[in-house]
């Protein structure tokens, strides 16, 4: 297990390293001189000698690998530079948005589990039944609704016609005060994922039910309920869990849309705003932060899955399971 964890950790570090190189090259590809971005409009007025000196001071004349190392050291120490649109420290701007986004992601994840576990298991057990068809059609429906459209329609219905829920902002006064603001964004964010989770769970449940060991259990006269909860569900929960990690990336992408529509002061809205305002330092920090979050979450989930399922550990060591 320790060996597995170390191997997985090394892999995650490698992925982080490659990802950060991609991000760095990407910054260099963006239009505009990094020096010009710091000095703003004044940069045009400077003489060539002064510009040379500035690039020298910023380390822009060094070879690219050295620049990358400088950039990375700053990034790791939390020195992301200054936001060009507000003039604040980037780490401060980003720091403010993490808690709202986390709250949103967490509550939508809760809704996903609430809405997908039961239909997934039922339609997986009773494949081909009317119930299964209904669940399938519904889950495809959920997958094909664009989240921004759903957000608009919900807003129209619940805020404009019924006047029940607020349309924008985050509210104040702790969780109870924020709840009405949270309901619609969390729901919209959950809906598109619910479809995928149901499909995934259905497929895995039906694969597990086809395994010989289930038939062996039946032959020994074990009751359906025990087979279902003690054998089928734990088996199907491992891929379910690993999908939860993989879907964090798309959930983070979803927050961009949802937070923008509902004016939720989170990371996603900040990303889009900084892209629109060409605030590259904030944009880069947001992308790098999301990437790190995704990689670390996947690492954690892999470790948990390996703790649950010994077959994964032996697979990782290259043995035949």
């Amino acid at each position, binding site marked *: 297990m320790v060996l597995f964890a170390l191997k997985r950790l090394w892999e995650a570090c490698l992925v982080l390293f490659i990802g950060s190189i991609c991000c760095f090259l990407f910054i260099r590809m963006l239009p505009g001189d990094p020096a010009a971005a710091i000095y703003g409009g004044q940069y045009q007025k400077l003489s060539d000698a002064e510009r040379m000196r500035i690039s020298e001071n910023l380390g822009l004349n060094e070879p690219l690998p050295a620049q990358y190392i400088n950039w990375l050291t700053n990034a790791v120490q939390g020195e992301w530079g200054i936001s060009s649109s507000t003039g604040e420290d980037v780490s401060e701007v980003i720091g403010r948005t993490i808690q709202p986004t986390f709250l949103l992601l967490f509550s939508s994840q809760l809704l996903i589990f609430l809405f997908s576990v039961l239909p997934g298991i039922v339609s997986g057990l009773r494949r081909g039944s009317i119930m299964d068809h209904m669940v399938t059609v519904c889950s495809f429906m959920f997958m094909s609704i664009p989240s921004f459209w759903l957000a608009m329609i919900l807003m129209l219905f619940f805020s404009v016609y019924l006047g029940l829920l607020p349309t924008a902002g985050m509210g104040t006064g702790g969780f109870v005060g924020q709840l009405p603001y949270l309901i619609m964004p969390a729901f919209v964010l959950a809906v598109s994922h619910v479809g995928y989770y149901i499909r995934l769970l259905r497929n895995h449940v039906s694969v597990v039910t086809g395994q010989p060991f289930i038939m062996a259990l039946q032959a020994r006269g074990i009751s359906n309920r025990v087979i279902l909860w003690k054998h089928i569900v734990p088996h199907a929960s491992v891929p379910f869990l690993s999908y939860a990690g993989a879907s964090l990336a798309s959930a983070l992408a979803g927050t961009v849309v949802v937070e923008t529509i509902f004016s939720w002061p989170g990371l996603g809205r900040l990303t889009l705003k900084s*892209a629109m305002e060409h605030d590259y330092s904030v944009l880069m920090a947001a992308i790098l932060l999301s990437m790190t979050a995704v990689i670390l979450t996947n690492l954690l989930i892999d470790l948990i899955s390996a703790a649950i399922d010994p077959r994964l550990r032996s697979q990782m060591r290259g043995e035949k399971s």
Partner: protein
Amino acid sequence: MRIKSPWTVKASFMYLFILILLSVAAPVASFYDPQAVDMGHVLQPPDQDHPLGTDELGRDNWSRLLYGGRVSILAGTSAMVVSIVVGFLYGAASGFIGGVFDRILMRVVDALLSIPGLLLMIGLQLLFKPGLLSVIFVISFTSWMIVARLIRTEILSLKQNVFIQASTVLGASASHLLFRHLLPRCWPTIIVLAVSGISHAILAEATLSFLGIGIPPHEPSWGNMLMGAQGFLLGGAWWLAVFPGICIISTVLSILFIGDWLHGRLTPYDMQTEVRGWKRIVWK
């Protein structure tokens, strides 16, 4: 996997056929120029003159929907083709060559997959002038990774086959192996990926346009029609939001149904029978 009652699939094919027909014949099937401004008929609800109403500049909603369908279909299919071709070549190279090369290539895929797709799209879009071409490029750039990963797995398992070893012994070149033996056996995976790729690309195009970084607003597309509708929704102009939304949903839904059906057809699992056994023994 497979939906038993194929009426959903038939209906999906029918719908997509009509959609493609109408979009191709948009100049004939629309009664107005999609960009013609008519300030005398602003924000009209659906009536005889304008069957689906008009928008804030008096442009006909129906005509704009048809022309928007062109954009969606074009963006969806071309982004899919590009991402499949790139993903196949990358994945095949990685799985075929193997070793350290494979490991590095796959870690790059992991890294790119760790960046949320939409953030990557937003970042990339800054490099280009907004328009159909850049949207296609950005979407395909962010969706080839999954294709590459699945194709690599497929190639790795196919490589174990004896007939591959036999042709290697007989002196077959790498390109012969790849395109004569491995590619034909990847077709089922590629077709399923292609279908889901189109639905992904259509949704991505709509999202980008909705966020205002996709197709520029004067050219109609379902996404930016919805972006335009946002401001007038609270004033009660429901027809601006509902119809493009229905178009996106029904198109993506049809493609999902077809993809699911193809997946069931093309992947040789005999789970169907085993599950029936479970049902017979346990639940009755």
